[in-house]
């Protein structure tokens, strides 16, 4: 049996609001293994890792490393003990250079001053060693998301971590980039590093991990050898029931165009063409998927369509109305519903109740108010109904949204947008980082709405499996342009899609004729 390098025994973590995120969790890691840590949203994975990395103090529990009990009081302790963590959300300082970000905390010094040149060469060294192609002198703000992820990993590697925690590192990567990352993880594993890998993509877990530890509702259900399990076994453990990973859908019943985009150009504040002459339509009853490496214009398209930002030239029409110069309010009035990319930032107000969050896009409508006052009773009943319909797990409708788990917050967002009565749904990363159970429900609803109610849907997602499963028509974005279009999404392979996303292949205008 392999040498055990780390053991967390009986960890209980209670947050300041009284929420118990880890309940007497016991967890161990062997030398030279890649261990998967899985669980639904809010199961407590990140929390457990934060405890390990010294970011949160547990109420009880003991950590042992190489058989000796240790105390990890803060991140400095953790780093000193050879633990590194790649966080679920980027932990970068955008205005600093790559090198400065990478050496932050262990800055090289010369004559008592920060030595930038040495920092650059140190960074270059790590980049060369692990085959990361990145310029250390670039500003982090100018990097693509994939590159940022690499910087995060370099930050951990440069500190010589022996235990590496990776909290959903692949959520923003293309399949090719993921492959690249996995190669490096295997390299690291073989050179004696131990890796904790957190992911909601069970296929990945299956691919590179040898063992899996499952958390649910803060409890640890135990560790299992992956050799004996398939993906649905894992998801059953996580969710407590069988989960359908494939979505059955009938052929779309396509109607008239709802959204019409013609020669759309957007230039951002830095003067870059983030949307470069885009044209396509979205019709009634169909789901159009957009794939692409993050930062290639998908978010900008979603911003333009939702009215969150303006555009430089071209025409965009929603149900026949030009949206040039229109506000979000106007565009919503034309029939748009919008599931934003970052739910905590754009999708909800954390401190407000579920009820208040659901009302946010419609409170001004006649049926919800009498004079300048809100119709409390009417709204309460309605929200109760939505909570039931969308299976939102909560105490009651007046619970602040921030107290819900990630997946349930997303359900609140979805409940609002899907009941807004719109015939165009703009869904940007609707299931990012939420667990299979909730994701399944959301995907099914998207398809159901298009089939039963004839909604036009634009689905932007970094999860290729998702775009492939849900879309009828599929477009690929690269550098602000549409570089490929496929009539039937479920006939495309992930690998082929990846080639277009990375710019290895591009379709000509003729090839895409009639698909836009």
């Amino acid at each position, binding site marked *: 049996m392999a040498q055990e390098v780390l053991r967390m025994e009986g960890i209980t973590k209670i947050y300041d609001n009284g929420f118990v995120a880890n309940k007497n969790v016991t967890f161990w890691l062997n030398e030279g293994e890649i261990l998967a840590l899985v669980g639904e949203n809010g199961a407590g994975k990140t929390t457990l890792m934060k405890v390990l990395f010294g970011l949160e103090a547990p109420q009880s529990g003991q950590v042992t490393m190489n058989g000796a009990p240790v105390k990890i009081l803060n991140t400095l302790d953790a780093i000193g003990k050879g633990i590194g963590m790649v966080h679920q959300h980027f932990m970068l300082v955008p205005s600093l250079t790559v090198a400065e970000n990478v050496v932050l905390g262990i800055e090289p010094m010369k004559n008592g001053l920060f030595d930038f040149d040495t920092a650059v060469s140190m960074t270059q060294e790590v980049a060369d060693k692990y085959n990361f192609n990145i310029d250390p002198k670039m500003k982090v703000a100018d990097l693509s998301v994939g590159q940022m992820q690499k910087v995060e990993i370099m930050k951990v590697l440069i500190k010589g971590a022996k235990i590496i925690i990776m909290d959903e590192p692949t959520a923003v990567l293309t399949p090719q980039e993921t492959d690249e990352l996995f190669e490096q993880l295997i390299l690291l594993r073989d050179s004696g590093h131990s890796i904790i890998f957190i992911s909601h993509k069970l296929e990945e877990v299956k691919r590179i991990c040898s063992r899996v530890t499952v958390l649910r*509702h803060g409890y640890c*259900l135990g560790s299992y050898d992956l050799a004996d399990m398939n993906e649905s076994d894992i998801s059953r*453990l996580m969710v407590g029931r069988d989960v359908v990973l494939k979505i059955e859908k009938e052929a779309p019943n396509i109607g008239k165009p709802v959204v019409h985009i013609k020669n759309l150009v957007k230039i951002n504040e830095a003067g870059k063409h983030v949307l470069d002459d885009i044209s396509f339509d979205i019709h009634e009853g169909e789901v159009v998927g957009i794939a692409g490496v993050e930062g290639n214009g998908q978010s900008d398209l979603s911003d333009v369509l939702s009215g969150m930002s303006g555009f430089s030239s071209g025409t965009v029409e929603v149900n026949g109305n030009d949206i040039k110069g229109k506000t*979000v309010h106007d565009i919503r009035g034309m029939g748009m519903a919008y599931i934003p990319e970052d739910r905590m930032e754009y999708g909800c107000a954390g401190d*407000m109740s579920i009820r208040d969050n659901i009302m946010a896009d419609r409170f001004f409508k006649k049926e919800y108010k009498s004079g300048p006052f809100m119709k409390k009773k009417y709204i309460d009943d309605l929200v109760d109904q939505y909570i039931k319909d969308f299976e939102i797990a909560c105490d009651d409708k007046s619970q602040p949204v921030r107290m819900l788990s990630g997946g349930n917050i997303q359900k609140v967002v979805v409940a609002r947008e899907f009941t807004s009565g719109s015939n165009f749904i703009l869904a940007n990363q609707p299931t990012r980082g939420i667990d299979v159970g909730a994701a399944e429900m959301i995907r099914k609803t998207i398809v159901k709405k298009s089939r039963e109610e004839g909604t036009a849907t634009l689905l932007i997602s970094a999860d290729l499996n998702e775009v492939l499963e849900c879309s009828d028509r599929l477009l690929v974005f690269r550098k602000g342009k549409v570089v490929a279009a496929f009539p039937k999404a479920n006939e495309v392979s992930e690998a082929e899609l990846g080639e277009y996303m990375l710019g290895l292949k591009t379709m000509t205008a003729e090839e895409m004729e009639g698909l836009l």
Partner: protein
Amino acid sequence: MNKTRKIEMTVELVRILVAVAIAYVIALVTLFLISDDPIYIIQQFVLGPFSSVRRVGSIINLAIPFTFTGLCFCFMYAVNKFNLSGEGIFMFSGCIVTLVAINLGEGLPFPLMILVLLIVGAVVGVVVTAIPAFLDAKFNSNIVVVSLMLNSILVFLSIWVLKYQMRDPSIGSMGSYPLPDNAVLPNIFGKFRIQAGLFIAIIAVIAVAILFYKMVFGYKMRVVGSNPLFAKACGINMVGTIVIAQLIGGALAGMGGACEILGNYDRYKWVASTQHGFDGLMVAVLARRNPILVPVAALLLAYIRIGADVVNSRGDIPIEFITVIQGIVILLVAAEEFMGRFKKNMIYKAAAEGLDKDKKEEVKELMSEDGEGKEQ
């Protein structure tokens, strides 16, 4: 969760009491060093405000301006804009209200006159707040800086108006012509000598509370303040909401200035800022930005101030000492972390108890579902 909320509220209350107690202990220790009769001083500080009917009235009287500016800052906090113009407005609106009152003279009958003057005060507030609010919305100019600078400008502008537009040359000190009788808010409740502005303040609190929690605009404002990006994504008119909320806040500060002048003064004579704006900021924070709690916080602050006055007139301690004590009280009451450990431990204990209780059932339940999961 409800258990947690209960703990939080209890701790909050205990904390305010402990904070005040600590400040008084500090005061006592200091007084032992510098005063001949520290016990007497402390007694005056703590009990003095209640020693006569008139002093109790003074607390309430002083709480009136605090309530207005406190409400003003509730609006600023609600939309997350640190528009500090409430400070300057209070003084300037008092000035303009006096100017209008003098010029209107005895023309209007009493209640109507007051109404007109309150509106004037509110309008002054709206116009003044509009400047930083607009510059912020339009040019993204830092609202804190603009409003602070504006406050300084308003001080000089008020002095100018006083000096050149309404100064009463027949009195030795700097002061405007006296307010006409029909513009004076009378004292009410006999010996309490509370000014009738109290009613206006009460109405303002109720109106603001309804606006915040029952009306569409209040809802809109809370969404915008709670998460502006979310509000934008929902199509809420951000700029409009933010600006209007500030204007309402400004109007309240303006009415506060009007009530203060009409209720407590015979003529306008401010030549320096009253600091009631900053007092209002403190009140809003102490009230946890909740308009319903504003009167309570205003009374607390007024109580401390009146205590200070009593000490000042009764004892041998210079009045400035109290500003230090007051600073300590405010910092302790507002410090989230003060007694935070105590609160957290209570929460942890409650949560851990809950955990122990349902542990067995829950684990059993979980395990039965995953019957086939084999632990290594």
